[in-house]
C-alpha cells in the first residue's frame, strides 16, 4: 500500500483532466491505496453546488464526489487561497472538504509516497 496524493488544478469542464484524475483516484482507493485529494486553483470550482455538467457537454463526474467516503477517501483538502481568489465562501461548498492554508497542502504533498497532478 502506498500513500497517493492526487491534486486537481484545472477548472471543471474546460478539459478532461479532473475527470481522468477522479477515475484514477477511485481506482487507487479500490485497490486499497491510501488516497488523499487536493483541490487547488480553479479546480476548487468542482466543489460548488448546482452544477449541470451535461449542459457543457460533459459527463456529470462531479456527482461521485459525494461518495468519496464510500471509497474510504477521508482526506479531501481545498486550498483556501484558491477559494479566496475566486470569491468563494466555505459555506457555499457542496462537498465536504477541509479548507486549508497552503502549508497544510505542502505537508500533504510531503507526506505522500507519490503525488499525481491532474
Amino acid at each position, binding site marked *: 500500500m502506498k500513500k497517493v496524493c492526487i*491534486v486537481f*488544478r484545472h477548472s471543471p469542464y474546460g478539459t478532461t483532466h479532473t475527470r481522468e484524475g477522479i477515475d484514477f483516484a477511485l481506482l487507487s482507493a479500490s485497490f486499497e491505496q491510501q488516497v488523499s485529494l487536493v483541490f*487547488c*486553483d480553479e479546480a476548487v470550482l468542482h466543489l460548488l453546488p448546482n452544477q449541470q455538467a451535461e449542459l457543457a457537454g460533459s459527463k456529470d463526474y462531479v456527482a461521485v464526489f459525494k461518495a468519496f467516503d464510500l471509497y474510504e477517501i477521508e482526506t479531501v483538502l481545498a*486550498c483556501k*487561497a484558491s477559494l479566496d481568489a475566486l470569491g468563494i465562501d466555505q459555506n457555499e461548498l457542496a462537498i465536504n472538504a477541509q479548507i486549508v492554508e*497552503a502549508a497544510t*497542502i*505542502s505537508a500533504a*504533498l*510531503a507526506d*505522500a*509516497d*507519490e*503525488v*499525481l*497532478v491532474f
Partner: protein
Amino acid sequence: MILHHIQTSPSHDNAMRLCLRYIRSGDSIILTADAVNVLLYQEWLNLLTAVPVYVLKDEIEARGLAGKLADISNMKINVIDVDEFVNQTLHHSKVITW
C-alpha cells in the same frame, strides 16, 4: 525533498505559480519544455532566488537561449542533461509533475 517538474510556460499555465505556493525549503524545481521560459522573466527570477533550479540543457539549446541565460548570475541555475535528470529524481524523495 520534492523535485517539482514544470513543463509549461508561466504565460499560459498556472503550474509554476502553484508550485511556488506549495514548495518547501529543501525542495527543488526542474524546468523542461516551455517552462524554461520562466528564466527569461525577471519577475519569476525574483521569486526563485532561494530555490535550487534545474533546467534541461537540450531544451535551452533547442530554443537558442544558452547565451541569454548565461547572463543570469544572481542565482544558481543548474543546467543538466537527461542523465542527471534521472539522478535527481532519485536524489529527491519524489517528483511532482505540475
